[in-house]
């Protein structure tokens, strides 16, 4: 039982790291789609969120933000959705996403694109770091969990 729990925890931690990488990559793609919606179609932000979420499922992040926008305003809706739906991200990643909360929708198209580019660059950097970390520690956590479990079992025996 103890061995299984340790192995499970190791695998979970490894999966979390993998999920962070995937989530960051998706966010970058989603922001690229948002850029297109804003730059070429001038789609209203709520519809742009829903269109993007439909084309590229974002763990409900953009959908949640869109649904709460009328009630909470875009700033709070964006921040709350980030906290609720982007749990696999690190605090630094999430804070980068939240930078957009006070800027989204409130400037001209050029300003929007610049802000999205800025945050995208931060996320690309973070994605690179996350990938490195996963390569370095992912397998270690996975096998380390199993080994730690086995070790504890041996000690107890």
């Amino acid at each position, binding site marked *: 039982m103890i061995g299984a729990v340790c192995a499970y925890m190791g695998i979970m931690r490894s999966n979390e790291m993998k999920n962070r990488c995937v989530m960051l990559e998706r966010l970058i793609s989603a922001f690229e789609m948002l850029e297109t919606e804003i730059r070429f179609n*001038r789609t209203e*932000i709520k519809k742009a969120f829903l269109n993007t979420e439909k084309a590229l499922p974002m763990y409900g992040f953009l959908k949640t933000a869109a649904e709460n926008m009328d009630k909470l305003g875009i700033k709070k809706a964006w921040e709350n959705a980030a906290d609720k739906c982007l749990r696999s991200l690190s605090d630094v990643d999430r804070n980068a996403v939240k930078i957009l909360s006070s800027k989204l*929708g409130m400037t001209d198209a050029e300003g929007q694109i610049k802000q999205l580019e800025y945050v995208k660059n931060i996320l690309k950097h973070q994605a690179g770091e996350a990938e490195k970390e996963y390569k370095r520690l992912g397998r270690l956590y996975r096998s380390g969990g199993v080994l730690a479990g086995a070790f504890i079992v041996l000690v107890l025996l």
Partner: protein
Amino acid sequence: MYIANNTLVHPYAGILEYMPSALRRYMYNINLDGAREIHLQAGKPVTVYYNGGARYLTPEGRLADKYTGGVRVTGSDIREALEIAARSSLYSVSDEVSEGYITISGGHRIGICGQGVVKDGKNTFIKEVSALNYRLASEIKGTADKVIERICSGTEVKNTLIISPPGAGKTTMLRDIVRCLSYRGIRVSVADERQEIAAMRDGHSPFDLGVGADVLSGVPKAQAMIMLLRAMSPEVIVTDEIGGEQDIEAVTKIINCGAKIITTIHGFNVEQVSRRSDLCNLLEFFDLFITLSSKNGVGTVTEILKREEVGI
């Protein structure tokens, strides 16, 4: 001539939902009947303009004549109001913002003041917004009753110029003329550059524009008039606030093509408009001149003159 016994239709319908939440709660019980504008400026009291003058919103949710103790607008109120007006998407209405306004549902228009962003000599955006002015659109059916028989006898429509100072009701008059003509079976097309006449939203106008008035919104009016002429074969083209060289060119083309035009211009009377060198050539195209003022209330028709009477 005072406009009386008319039906005032939803003069401020839905305007409260465009107010920032911190101010909205004081406004539920105030009477906006007859209000023309609501003015929000950061650091200043909320001001409601009526024909009789300005009144100020109080923390008790009433309107007072004195501004002291009035509910003051904050910077975040302005930001919230702007966000609501633009549906959190200022970039999607940046063409309107660059012109200094946003049209909202109900046909109301929010004027914007702040720091202009100028590129190549043209204003492209307004940032650091400091004041918003809600111009309340009203549909007053019957506004055109006193003038419609002069404009239209049978199916013959006269080229008409409505002269009016700002805020005297020329757009309301124009809207009612469109409605009357359209119900008489005349094919009317509206070149609504600033979306004031029809205030189309998602393909629909909140106003009664009759049975068959076509509306082209958001296109510069000179271009829009020509597009409508070619595409919709109208008998009458209606547009607001002409004055530029291109507008005059478009009007010439329309009249030469046999269509009629009904439009408005800022001014106090025909004589004053005819003194403007850029406009004197324009006047000869019109058969009828209607002058409006706010003397006895918005939409007071002070003068109706035929071309012969003006001496053009």
